[in-house]
């Protein structure tokens, strides 16, 4: 964090997010990367609600919110309007994982297929938090949410794997697609800079742990984000013209270290250990490591 340039804050403190909110940190970093010459279009969700309770706003740049699922279409219109007026602001969408993976897919697909010069940031806290922690297409396998609760017939919680949204957007021909994490703020900022300066539709999915929804102490947000990477359950990578060009390497830890620290995975340990589910989650991390080649071999340095 200290390495990130501390300028005049465009995303001001005093918003209504929970203490230790991962998405709130992502918003701050985002505006550090974009600077003032930007227009932000926000989807309904925690970030929109905690940052703009009328008549207060945390946004020091032009900002618009319309609905939960139409942010990419709103941004398409903004971009066309700016183009027509010969204006230079960058257009950036920000939406949660629910807005992005689920209900907004139609609008995002349309905007990416048409090739608007926009950057879409998905802040991924892996569930619908604003409505009280329901499952989304981004919720990881095995996590408990209020709509994927563990029970006698569903001991593992969420039975489905996380949707591969970056691949879906890369398949649209997006010139630049990346994943990032608030655990690595400079990396996130650089990726945003690259995206907004790449013509055409670009996508960044930033991992933003949510202490309230995942069930960990509010001081542990960055540690949790880092553990997700260290276990291989989250991979930071970049795709240029559809090809993975760079992925952050790690000396992997067992997934259990990550799972055991969060209440959303508590059912995997209590009342009885669910070694089968934990093994499945380990297999997901192993597959990630294989796919992105992130395992640090002996004497290799990270990245």
């Amino acid at each position: 964090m200290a390495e990130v340039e501390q300028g005049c804050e465009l995303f001001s403190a005093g918003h209504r997010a929970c203490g230790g909110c991962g998405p709130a940190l992502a918003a701050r970093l985002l505006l550090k990367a974009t600077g003032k010459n930007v227009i932000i279009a926000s989807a309904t969700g925690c970030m929109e609600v905690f940052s703009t309770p009328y008549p207060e706003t945390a946004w020091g740049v032009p900002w618009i919110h319309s609905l939960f699922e139409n942010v990419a279409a709103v941004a398409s219109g903004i971009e066309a309007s700016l183009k027509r007026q010969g204006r230079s602001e960058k257009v950036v969408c920000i939406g949660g994982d629910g807005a992005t993976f689920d209900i907004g897919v139609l609008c995002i697909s349309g905007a990416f297929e048409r090739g608007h010069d926009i950057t879409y940031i998905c802040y991924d806290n892996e569930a619908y938090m604003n409505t009280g922690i329901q499952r989304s297409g981004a919720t990881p396998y095995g996590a408990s949410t209020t709509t994927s609760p563990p029970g006698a017939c569903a001991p593992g919680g969420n039975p489905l794997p996380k949707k591969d949204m970056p691949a879906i957007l890369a398949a649209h021909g997006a010139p630049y697609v990346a994943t990032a994490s608030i655990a690595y703020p400079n990396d996130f900022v650089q990726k945003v800079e690259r995206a907004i300066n790449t013509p055409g539709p670009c996508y960044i999915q930033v991992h933003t742990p949510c202490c309230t929804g995942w069930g960990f102490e509010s001081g542990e947000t960055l540690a949790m984000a880092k553990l997700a990477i260290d276990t291989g359950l989250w991979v930071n990578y970049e795709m240029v013209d559809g090809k993975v060009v760079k992925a952050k390497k790690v000396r992997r830890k067992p997934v259990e270290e990550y799972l055991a620290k969060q209440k959303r995975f508590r059912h995997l340990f209590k009342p009885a250990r669910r070694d089968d589910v934990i093994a499945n989650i380990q297999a997901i991390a192993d597959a990630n490591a294989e796919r992105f080649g992130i395992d640090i071999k002996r004497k290799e340095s990270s990245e």
Partner: protein
Amino acid sequence: MLEFMEGSHAVAEIVKRCRPQVIAAYPITPQTHIVEDLAQMVANCELDAEYITVESEFSALSACLGASAAGSRVYSATTSQGLALMFEVCFNVAGMRQPIVMTIANRSLGAPLSIWNDQQDSISLRDSGWLQFYAEDNQEAVDLHMIAYKVCEDHDILLPAFVCFDGFILSHTYEPVALPGQEEVDAYLPAFTPYQRLDAEKPLSFGMYATPEYYTEFRYETDRALYRAKESFIKAGREFGEQFGRDYSALVEGYRLEDADTALVAMGSICGTAKDAIDEMRDAGKKVGLLKIRTYRPFPGPEIADALSGVSTVAVLDKNISLGGGGAVGTEVKAALYGSGAAVYDYIIALGGRDVRKRDVAAVVDLAEKGKGDMFYGLRTEVL
């Protein structure tokens, strides 16, 4: 100079002359000819606009919202299922006070699937905060587009508007139309000056979240703006008359109402048929007239009460049905005439493209005069 052309083409021609900077639309019968014509105009460099070929009506209106908020004059067109898909965005656009003009080539709503005309689509959006203007013929459809932009963009109003014209009956019909030239339109409708816009020079937040302490006041302000739009429409309609010789300064328009005992009330193209039927009934000695509603939103309640003050029987032709609640226009006309002593009857008619002829209008008048109403007119009981 009158030109003989298709209604959709006339609408596209006037939209072009209104100089929208961003157009986002999605094809649906019977609106398609309008958006195809506009796409061709853009392709031919006749119209200097960004044309966004969106993947749905939902995105069409969402893109219009973004474009408008960023400071451009925008345009869209739709109907029926397309408008239904826009439902959520419609409320949003009005609440965010964006002056978007959208043509509705009125069509019924499924199920059952029907591509034919009635006014169920736009009427179902009556509570959304959009102004709603209904055209009787293609000339009025053309003229109402210019007026709509003027009213919507009035900084005292800042609301979106539907310009409604009956699908097929008007959209696909060739009629002589006087199309104002570009210079005349420019003289009437100045370049768009947004009241506020998304702008890095002056950062503002649009579309915030309101707690119970503020929500009601937002709704109140929008409601007031709709009522203020009456004056704005009257002024814009009068100015239009001064410049083009066709006066639109009335929210409701009477036809042979002066000494009428019975009045029909209607909106859109059915008014033309009703006028012809009234001429025949008048020839036969019946004192019948018509009140045409031009602005369904804002609803001209007092204007209707005033225009119908001498009438004893009122028959409302409703090309829609609020299922389980009666015709939408009839319900509001009854409220407007409450206490006037007039007997008001509602007739659900011309749904899903069923033809209405002069004899049907005469039959409705007969029913009303016999005290029979609040019914579906012309039901084919043999297929029930």
